[in-house]
């Protein structure tokens, strides 16, 4: 589904990612672990075309998409839940969701909206509310639903659990678990290792812009534990 080959990327002249290679197969959920400033956000943004790559290649379903404009990457079926709660605050929930369906044909957008409302009945109740007036958990649910409006094949999620209450985190987990069951391919960048390790089959650890570990078991858990301690320290 997704393959990065020796990817380098950064902001202006400041390099952030070095020689990052990874693979994500169709239907997999893959965790991207790493402490503050490791480069998780930069990596997801590079895949989405928001950060310019400086070397290497990004392949989507085998096709080279390196250097594509972000709107083209969205059109190819990549959805990206950004870090921080990026709602359109003064637009209604419904309008927020419809913007998420930009890549769909005009007539298909309303149909998709009904499907999403079936999946998230809470959002249907809130459809006329300004998104900025929702609670944090509601906003995060809406942002996820907005990403799903495009019927993505690949979902990139950047710290979706940050700032949520334990109850909201549980609800969020259920949403992602359901997405997995439906076969959506997920790349999840989280500092909350418990959250992502419960959800994902395997993962990568990113440190200072380099992949330092790729694993699907105990090693990843202990690395995540070390990261967690480093984070708390």
């Amino acid at each position, binding site marked *: 589904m997704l393959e990065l080959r020796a990817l380098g990327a950064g902001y202006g002249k400041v390099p952030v990612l070095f020689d990052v290679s990874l693979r994500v197969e169709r239907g997999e959920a893959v965790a991207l672990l790493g402490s503050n400033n490791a480069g998780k956000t930069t990596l997801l943004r590079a895949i*989405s075309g*928001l950060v310019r790559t400086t070397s290497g290649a990004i392949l989507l379903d085998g096709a080279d998409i390196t250097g594509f*404009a*972000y*709107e083209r990457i*969205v*059109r190819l079926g990549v*959805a*990206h*839940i*950004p870090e921080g709660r*990026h*709602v*359109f*605050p*003064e*637009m209604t929930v419904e*309008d927020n969701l*419809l*913007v*998420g369906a*930009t*890549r769909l044909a*005009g007539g298909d*957008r309303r149909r998709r909206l009904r499907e999403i409302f079936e999946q998230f009945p809470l959002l249907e109740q809130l459809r006329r509310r*300004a998104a*900025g*007036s929702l609670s944090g958990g509601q906003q995060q649910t809406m*942002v996820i639903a*907005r*990403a799903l409006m*495009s019927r993505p094949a690949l979902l990139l999620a950047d710290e979706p659990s940050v700032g949520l209450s334990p109850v909201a985190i549980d609800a969020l987990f259920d949403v992602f678990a359901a997405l997995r069951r439906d076969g959506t391919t997920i790349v999840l960048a989280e500092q909350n290792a418990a959250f992502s390790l419960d959800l994902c089959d395997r993962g990568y650890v990113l440190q200072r812009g380099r992949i330092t570990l790729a694993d699907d078991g105990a090693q990843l858990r202990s690395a995540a534990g070390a990261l967690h301690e480093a984070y708390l320290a």
Partner: protein
Amino acid sequence: MTLVLSGLVQGIVLGTVLALLTSGMTLIYRTSRIVNFAHGSLLALAMYATYDLHQRFGLDALWFPLVVAPSMFLLGLALYWGCIRPIRSAHHLAAIQLLLGLSIAIDALLLMRYGADLHTVDNAFSARFVTVLGTGYSLANLVAFGVAVTALTALAFALRFTAWGRRLRAVAQDELAAKLCGVSVLNVEAITWALGIALLGAIAPLLGGIITLTPDMGLRYTVLALVILIVGGTDSLVGTIVAGILIGVVQTLGLLLLPGSYGSLLPYVLLVVVLVFRPGGVSALLRRPA
């Protein structure tokens, strides 16, 4: 009393037209965070173009919006792709310098080409009057008013209910999220510039009875639009409409009731009052607390 009443009507007519002129500036500011300091000069350009066409072909000015608006649309597109897009990530002063420079260049060209004399562009309705509440109004001005109301209504409707409007508001409210939803920010900005400038062309040919052509009008209308933009609150079309009407009424009544030309200072007084007491402008008042 009839004096005040007719001043009020005239003020509303003027204000609605000013609101339409400013609405393009508002849209441009909302999406690209750039104040179009050439806005008034582009209005002057559209009005002089009408004057020129009228002189050359003798066609009635009523028809000119059909030509001038699309031309201004293309000019707006060219301005965006040629000048604004290349510097959009540079320091924001770069855009201000560029647009002020463009404004001065347009004003100078108009002065060279058409001289410093005052001109007006009449149309078939200019000499016809209708009487409302005992006062006669030029039918031409009411036509301009009608066009302004129609255009503003269509614009508000499109912003609120179409996919295009949703994309524009999305870019205005959160550019990163809009990009990740697949909205091309460059396309939205380009269309906003083109449309904002096309609106000048849609109304310019009809303003003969409201705005007198002078080669220095450009900067003056830029400043007036800027006042309306700020009083309206920069981020909402409704705010701009309310502020435009407010400024139009205040200025017209001021000129009628105050000695000399003190009345034309009132919009700036209002600007200062708003900046001191309500920096968010009209739209901050309209927004219901969440």
